[in-house]
């Protein structure tokens, strides 16, 4: 009896670890930015390149920074959700490594809920924000601190159960 019990136990422990490993998402890397000030930048606006946007301008408000690109499929997927969210919170787009005319055409075609989009043509600001895949969405509080980062497309469930409650709490 004892002879089989130990290997069996070891096997079960191993199965347990492996099963746990399957529930983890290796593509979601925890951001070191949580509860740190959002990196500053000044970028040309997508619609009006002679004007700039800087996160400084959003001080005093809770807002979202949504990284998107017209070449990114998941961005299209989350776009209706983002547009919907824009009714409850100001959302700034960071147009990541995109061509200006293509980005503008994309917004014309699928709708534009952003209060403004900034052009990060060479992806430098993206790197400063630790972006490693589009889309990513940052929740930034009134003091300019990053409170949450969502990696990948925002779906309705995430918007309803995570983002909106957090925004409501930060707005209080």
């Amino acid at each position, binding site marked *: 009896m004892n002879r089989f019990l130990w290997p069996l136990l070891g096997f079960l422990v191993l199965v347990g670890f492996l099963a746990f490993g399957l529930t983890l998402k290796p593509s979601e890397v925890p951001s070191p930015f949580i509860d740190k000030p959002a990196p500053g930048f000044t970028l040309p606006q997508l619609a009006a390149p002679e004007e700039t946007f800087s996160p400084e301008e959003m001080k005093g408000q809770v807002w979202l920074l949504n990284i998107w690109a017209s070449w990114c499929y998941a961005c299209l997927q989350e776009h209706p959700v983002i547009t919907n969210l824009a009714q409850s919170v100001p959302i700034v787009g960071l147009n990541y490594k995109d061509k200006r005319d293509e980005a503008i055409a994309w917004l014309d075609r699928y709708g534009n809920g952003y209060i403004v989009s900034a052009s990060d043509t060479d992806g430098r600001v993206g790197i400063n924000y630790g972006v490693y*895949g589009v889309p990513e969405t940052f929740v930034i509080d009134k003091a300019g601190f990053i409170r949450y980062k969502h990696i990948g497309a925002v779906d309705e469930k995430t918007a309803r159960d995570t983002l909106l409650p957090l925004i409501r709490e930060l707005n209080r």
Partner: protein
Amino acid sequence: MLNIASELRCLVCQNESIAASRADLAVDLRQQIREQIHAGQTDQEIRAYMVDRYGDFILYRPPLQATTILLWFGPLLLLVFGLLVLTLTLRHRMRSMTDRLLSDEERKRAEALLKLNNIPD
């Protein structure tokens, strides 16, 4: 350049280093590293720059922390455990071997029995 880039994990294709990956992000990060080397940054400063943005996950050689102790010493722990099991097993087997040997008295009895049975022809 290659030295430090090969110690950094590409976050897009996580099994590749930034030096080896052809992902767009890796190309950009290599460019960043190049610029920083030109600016006279040390390896350590560049590494810190990357960790600030992407977290410890970007390092292939994770720092020794409470959360990574098992990662660092797990193999050693397994080795010690394995040696322990091995010695216990060997000792156990040795003991059962000596148990199986006949004592002097037993041997005499056995010889006597064999002689009894061994009827000369």
